[in-house]
């Protein structure tokens, strides 16, 4: 019935503010109140003649107390009290606190790191103007497609950006190899990225004669040109061509990849038939015009591609770019790593869930052992809400401490995760834990604190006063929470099984991969890349002579048994594919020129790498520039084109040349592309030409070659001598680092190995947490049932009987968890399929091994408390309660 002013929020806020102020001036208020009451008392004594009962004195104390209540900002005060109390509890149980905080920190830290990556790479918009308007047209296109698309479409502005290839930068000290991308002149304006200094490419600068310009990346500008602003306008030599530096991009610009150090115009020259229609096809990016939608662009693209296909001067397959479509550029950029990131994010999420289950279970058992204390607090007048709040404060405090430590762990984890991803990923270098992630971690900590704290708090607040105080334990309502706790641990074991099975499958994949025979022997072989400009090789004889000299010189180096050159070596990340004509296989619109992996090798190459000769003969020094053109094919090439026939004497040629080459030998298949995949999709096999007779897809002799030597000892001396030998040939020819071939092979699966290492660490964390969980659960049972066990022993149960009883109980929970985990793993491991090699997603052996492992961990975690249970002295335990 109170007629007070309605409690408007503003009023409440004002009052709260005033209370805070009052609290601040508390001492003064206390003094004033004391004086006021003193005054009151004095007057009262006067009136009654100095006779004051003790009750009246008590009234005054209560008045002061009630007034103080009125001033203090009560909620804050209680919160501080709760926190002080919680901190005291943690100090008293350091083991529990450390385990809880550490498990949470592992979970939260891993999540912070993964969220940072996901946020930077998948969520944060690209650093370009209106990034949501940028699309990628999937597939690759000849240069001719750029003006064609520009003319025909109405919804997008199209640009071409090649993925980047190596350029020689000469005349600036030691000749070096840099990565450059050829782009159409409008590329930067389509992307909406501005140069940091200088100017953008101007329209028309992609036409022949005007394309002698280059824009540098910030990193190349600072490392090679000392960050000197006056380099703009200077002319540099790239692949032997003079180009004027016109601009410098900002440091954050990383398109098409972070490895690109320079951008040059993509020459659009319709008169250069080979380059315009053939050569390296390029990816297209585009910006939606105002008002256009991605769906409209999508509808337009296929008809345009259909028309364009007909304009090709040579027949194209009807399926060519059939599935090309417009997708958001961001999705295109993250395509390869998206799956991996999401898998890792899910698994690190599982670790957090496991950590939460663990801490909840620990808190539940602690809540139970604290019944007596809580009952006492209830008896002293604490309400149920107050108890729940106290316990929740404790769990949130734990979670926040875990979150704080988690950020530290997350920073470490982030640098590991970053090393997993290809360093060319745009934006990867910028990934760091920032305040947004810190805020998210704090939120995560709060939510997890509430999530794992609510059950224990509720369980603890249901105390039966009289019984708890009398015995300190409680047997009736505890049953539900004990079962609940068993369920928690079971779920934890299940999640652990899922993670460990995933890790197991990956480990088996890695093992299978490392056991793969790559088709060659990389042992004791040193490689060094030598890359003269293409112009250096006109006439062809110049390059043939260069490599003959190098081979001759290399054989003289002490400790070198043999030497060879090859245009590419297996697993070196080059992709030398060549469109060929094959005898008996005429091209048509449906069967265009097949693509083959092509190598140019010196006679000793096959022998040195122990690539077996399966039929015919090897290449010899007699297969020189003037003799009849010959070719070696790999076993899979022979199988694909001439199944069941003798391929020796058949003919193959580069699609653009006139003369056929005769197949003289068949050699074994080699894992050229990767250890898990011998050849990229759409490539049927390999061919090898003698270097003296070789051609590339542009009709030239391959200029850049790898020199290989067989070393008798793998020490530094031959490597050093080899490099100086190569450098002494010509100062304008860049020479790479000497690298053992075995390192190249190992490096090709380094990313995969790193992914697996992270997975193993997740799985190990999960197993550790699960072991702690099971141990805690069983220890708790034992401590709760000390009386009962004592009784059993007293009436004749043997020690082994007690041990098997406790073991049985612990294992039952573990088994439920394992079964549930195996079912969950069966359902989920197929999402890993893209990472697996040579092992099924439901590999029974892995599943069995993981079951055994988790069971063994469960048994050892149970056996300690079980053993302790068997030592219970009946006399003591019966006396306790």
């Amino acid at each position, binding site marked *: *019935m*109170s*007629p*007070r*002013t309605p409690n408007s929020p503003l009023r409440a806020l004002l*009052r709260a503010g*005033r*209370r805070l102020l*009052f609290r601040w001036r508390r001492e003064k208020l206390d003094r*004033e*109140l004391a*004086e*006021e*009451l003193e*005054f*009151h008392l*004095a*007057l*009262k004594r006067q009136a009654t003649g100095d006779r004051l009962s003790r009750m009246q004195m008590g*009234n*005054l104390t*209560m*008045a*002061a107390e*009630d*007034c103080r*209540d*009125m*001033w203090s900002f009560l909620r804050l005060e209680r919160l501080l009290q709760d926190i002080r109390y919680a901190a005291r509890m943690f100090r008293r149980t350091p083991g529990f606190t450390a385990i809880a905080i550490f498990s949470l920190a592992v979970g939260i830290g891993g999540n912070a790191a993964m969220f940072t990556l996901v946020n930077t790479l998948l969520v944060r918009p690209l650093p370009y103007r209106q990034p949501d308007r940028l699309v990628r047209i999937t597939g690759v296109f000849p240069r001719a497609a750029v003006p064609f698309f520009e003319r025909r479409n109405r919804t997008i502005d199209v640009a071409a950006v090649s993925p980047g290839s190596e350029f020689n930068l000469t005349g600036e000290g030691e000749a070096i190899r840099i990565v450059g991308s050829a782009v159409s002149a409008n590329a930067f304006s389509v992307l909406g990225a501005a140069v940091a200094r200088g100017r953008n490419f101007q329209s028309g600068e992609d036409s022949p004669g005007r394309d002698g310009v280059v824009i540098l990346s910030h990193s190349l500008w600072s490392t090679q040109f000392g960050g000197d602003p006056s380099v703009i306008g200077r002319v540099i030599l790239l692949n032997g061509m003079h180009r004027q530096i016109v601009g410098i991009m900002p440091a954050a610009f990383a398109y098409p990849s972070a490895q690109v150090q320079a951008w040059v115009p993509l020459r659009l020259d319709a008169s250069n038939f080979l380059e315009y229609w053939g050569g390296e096809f390029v990816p297209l990016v585009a910006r939606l015009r105002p008002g256009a939608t991605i769906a409209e662009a999508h509808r337009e693209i296929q008809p345009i591609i259909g028309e364009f296909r007909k304009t090709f001067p040579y027949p194209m397959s009807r399926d060519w770019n059939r599935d090309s479509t417009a997708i958001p550029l961001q999705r295109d950029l993250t395509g390869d790593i998206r799956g991996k990131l999401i898998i890792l994010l899910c698994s690190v999420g599982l670790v957090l869930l496991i950590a939460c289950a663990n801490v909840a279970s620990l808190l539940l058992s602690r809540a139970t052992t604290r019944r007596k204390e809580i009952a006492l607090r209830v008896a002293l007048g604490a309400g149920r809400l107050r108890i729940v709040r106290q316990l929740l404060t404790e769990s949130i405090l734990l979670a926040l401490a875990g979150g704080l430590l988690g950020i530290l762990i997350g920073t470490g984890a982030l640098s590991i995760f970053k090393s997993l991803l290809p360093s060319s990923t745009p934006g990867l270098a910028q990934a760091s834990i920032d305040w947004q992630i810190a805020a998210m971690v704090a939120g995560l900590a709060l939510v997890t604190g509430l999530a794992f704290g609510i059950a224990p708090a509720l369980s603890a607040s249901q105390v039966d006063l009289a019984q708890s105080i009398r015995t300190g334990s409680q047997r009736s309502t505890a049953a539900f929470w004990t079962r609940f706790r068993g369920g928690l641990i079971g779920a934890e074991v299940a999640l652990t099984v899922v993670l460990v099975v995933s890790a197991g499958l990956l480990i088996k994949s890695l093992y299978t991969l490392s056991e793969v025979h790559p088709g060659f022997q990389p042992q004791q072989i040193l490689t060094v890349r030598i890359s003269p400009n293409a112009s250096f090789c006109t006439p062809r004889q110049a390059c043939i002579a260069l490599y003959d000299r190098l081979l001759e010189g290399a054989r003289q180096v002490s400790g070198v048994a043999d030497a060879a050159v090859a245009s590419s070596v297996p697993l070196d990340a080059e992709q030398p594919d060549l469109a060929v004509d094959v005898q008996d296989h005429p091209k048509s619109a449906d069967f265009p020129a097949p693509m083959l992996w092509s190598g140019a090798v010196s006679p000793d190459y096959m022998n040195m790498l122990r690539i077996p000769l399966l039929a015919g003969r090897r290449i010899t020094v007699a297969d020189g520039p003037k003799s009849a053109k010959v070719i070696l094919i790999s076993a899979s090439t022979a199988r694909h084109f001439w199944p069941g026939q003798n391929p020796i004497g058949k003919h193959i040629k580069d699609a653009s040349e006139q003369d056929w080459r005769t197949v003289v030998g068949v050699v074994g298949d080699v894992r050229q592309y990767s250890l898990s995949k011998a050849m990229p999709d759409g490539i049927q096999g390999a061919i090898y030409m003698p270097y003296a007779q070789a051609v590339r897809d542009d009709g030239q002799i391959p200029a850049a070659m790898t020199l290989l030597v067989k070393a008798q000892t793998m020490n530094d001396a031959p490597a050093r001598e080899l490099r100086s030998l190569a450098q002494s040939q010509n100062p304008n020819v860049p020479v790479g680092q000497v690298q053992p071939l075995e390192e190249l092979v190992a490096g090709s699966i380094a990313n995969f190995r790193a992914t697996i290492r992270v997975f193993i660490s997740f799985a190990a964390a999960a197993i550790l947490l699960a072991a702690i969980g099971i141990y805690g659960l069983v220890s708790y049972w034992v401590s709760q049932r000390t009386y009962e066990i004592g009784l059993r022993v007293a009436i004749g149960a043997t020690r082994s009987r007690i041990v098997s009883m406790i073991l049985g109980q612990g294992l039952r929970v573990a088994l439920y968890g394992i079964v549930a985990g195996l079912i969950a793993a069966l359902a989920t491991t197929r999402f890993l399929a893209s990472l697996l090699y040579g092992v099924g997603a439901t590999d029974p052996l892995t599943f069995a091994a993981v079951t055994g492992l988790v069971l063994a961990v469960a048994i050892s975690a149970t056996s300690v408390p079980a053993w302790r249970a068997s030592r219970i002295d009946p006399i003591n335990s019966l006396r306790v309660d």
Partner: protein
Amino acid sequence: MGKLPASELLPGTLDLLILRTLATGEMHGYGIAQRLKQVSGEVLQVGESSLYPALQRLLLNDWVKAQWRASENNRRARYYTLTAAGRKQLAAERAEFTRVVGAIEKVLNMA
């Protein structure tokens, strides 16, 4: 009729009584208690343990303001006065009280 301690009043009534007392002029705590006792014919006895918390509450709500001044016997005393908001509150509480008492009366007078 015996004495009625303040704790047995209808809730909120003590605030109303204090506000009404202060409407007659500035007064210190002891004075308010004395005035209530006098005016009610010694029926309403307000103890310190109710009076001073109630005064703090009224202060917090800005319905009264307090000032230290020398009292009639030359000691420092805290004098309370009604604010404009307090006057409004007094009118509102008074109307509400009348309404409730009227309602109670109706119940008591039913046939």
